[in-house]
């Protein structure tokens, strides 16, 4: 109907429908409210226009009315708030088994890497119907990953991870925008999300530039950088055993408990002294400035792969590690 004059972008993710439903509800509500007010104003303006010999009737006000038009909107507002909250929580809580894609933003491009090792620039290929979780960070300033067709946006910050997840529902090519102002070529920091049928996606994966799976790269780095000398897969290491750590709660030396998520692992590599695991000494060297964002992503992916209950169940995960009891809980 509105082919040349669209009112909303393509609806290509599970979130998009939910957001549009609320949006349409809000548009309708706003229309009703504003039309009511405008009609009243116009009616009063016409009905009570100044006429010779007709004086205005003085009215002080009415507390019941005031209470009505304070409470009534507030109730409606709370409905909107609650509805929005449900959507927000849904779109901000990634499913456990989502396929992960690491995103590194820099002035002015998007660098993406799949779990399987494929790298892409300013393009992301994903299959229809699979949950995709983006783990994003920036090399310089704040950017924002925005896909209008998915109704999703998340700022991408330097120095930490932010995440976003979606499940695409419709094959096609959609805009990827950077929506946080980031300098000269901000408007050039755009790309495409290519949503494909699963079969096509498999073909694309097979035809792509073969790279080692991310976790495997990470495993290599883990050896290379000497991490494995302390973080052993038994209880004898000078550092905590990392098997099964990911996603668990970790008791810290100062009594706090944190969840070992991507950001925690990242911080523990870059600034190990920030959150020391209970029972260990702050002896790990700082890796800030020694590893690139991509290497960091690989290391995080590796540590995460150690956390999987069934090693080898997913592509690219070395099955060599022993499922030992982790030191931390």
């Amino acid at each position: 109907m509105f082919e040349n004059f669209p009112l909303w972008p393509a609806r290509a993710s599970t979130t998009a429908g939910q957001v549009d439903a609320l949006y349409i509800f809000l548009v309708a509500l706003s229309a009703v409210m504003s039309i009511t007010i405008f009609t009243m104003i116009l009616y009063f303006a016409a009905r009570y226009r100044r006429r010779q010999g007709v004086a205005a009737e003085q009215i002080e006000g009415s507390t019941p009315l005031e209470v009505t038009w304070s409470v009534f909107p507030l109730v409606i507002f709370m409905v909107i708030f609650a509805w929005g909250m449900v959507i927000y929580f849904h779109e901000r809580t990634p499913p456990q088994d989502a396929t992960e894609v690491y995103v590194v933003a820099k002035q002015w491009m998007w660098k993406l890497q799949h779990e399987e090792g494929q790298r892409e620039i300013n393009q992301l290929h994903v299959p229809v119907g699979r949950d995709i979780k983006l783990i994003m960070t920036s090399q310089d300033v704040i950017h924002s990953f925005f896909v209008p067709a998915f109704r999703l946006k998340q700022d991408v910050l330097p120095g930490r991870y932010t995440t976003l997840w979606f499940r695409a529902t419709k094959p096609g090519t959609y805009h990827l925008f950077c929506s946080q102002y980031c300098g000269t070529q901000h408007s050039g920091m755009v790309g495409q999300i290519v949503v494909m049928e699963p079969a096509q996606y498999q073909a694309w994966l097979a035809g792509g530039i073969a790279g080692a799976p991310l976790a495997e790269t990470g495993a290599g780095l883990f050896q290379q950088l000497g991490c494995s000398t302390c973080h052993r897969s038994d209880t004898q290491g000078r550092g905590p055993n990392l098997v099964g750590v990911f996603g668990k709660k970790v008791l810290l030396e100062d009594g706090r408990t944190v969840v070992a998520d991507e950001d925690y692992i990242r911080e523990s590599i870059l600034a190990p002294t920030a959150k020391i695991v209970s029972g260990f000494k702050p002896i790990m060297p700082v890796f800030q400035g020694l590893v690139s964002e991509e290497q960091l992503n690989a290391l995080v992916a590796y540590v995460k792969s150690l956390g999987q209950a069934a090693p080898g169940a997913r592509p690219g995960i070395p099955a060599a590690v022993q499922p030992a009891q982790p030191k931390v809980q």
Partner: protein
Amino acid sequence: MSERILSSKLYIGIWATLMCLTVITAAVSFIDLGPFNTVVALVIATVKASLVILFFMHVKYTHERMTKVVIVAAFFFLLLLLALSMADYTTRFLA
């Protein structure tokens, strides 16, 4: 409105209290009270600040309601800034 003139003895008494509290707060910081070191330090600081406000700045003796309202309002909004900012920072890394 003629300001009430306080005796210099009172001022010197307040001054002596402030000096003592300064020494106490410095000394107490060397004693291990666990998390209460911070609490003690802030309580002492607040007592000192209150003494200055109430006596040196004459707020205890003023008949200006507005002075007190302004002070309370300023601290209230400061508290809002701190509390609502910390609402983000303390919950940011919860799962």
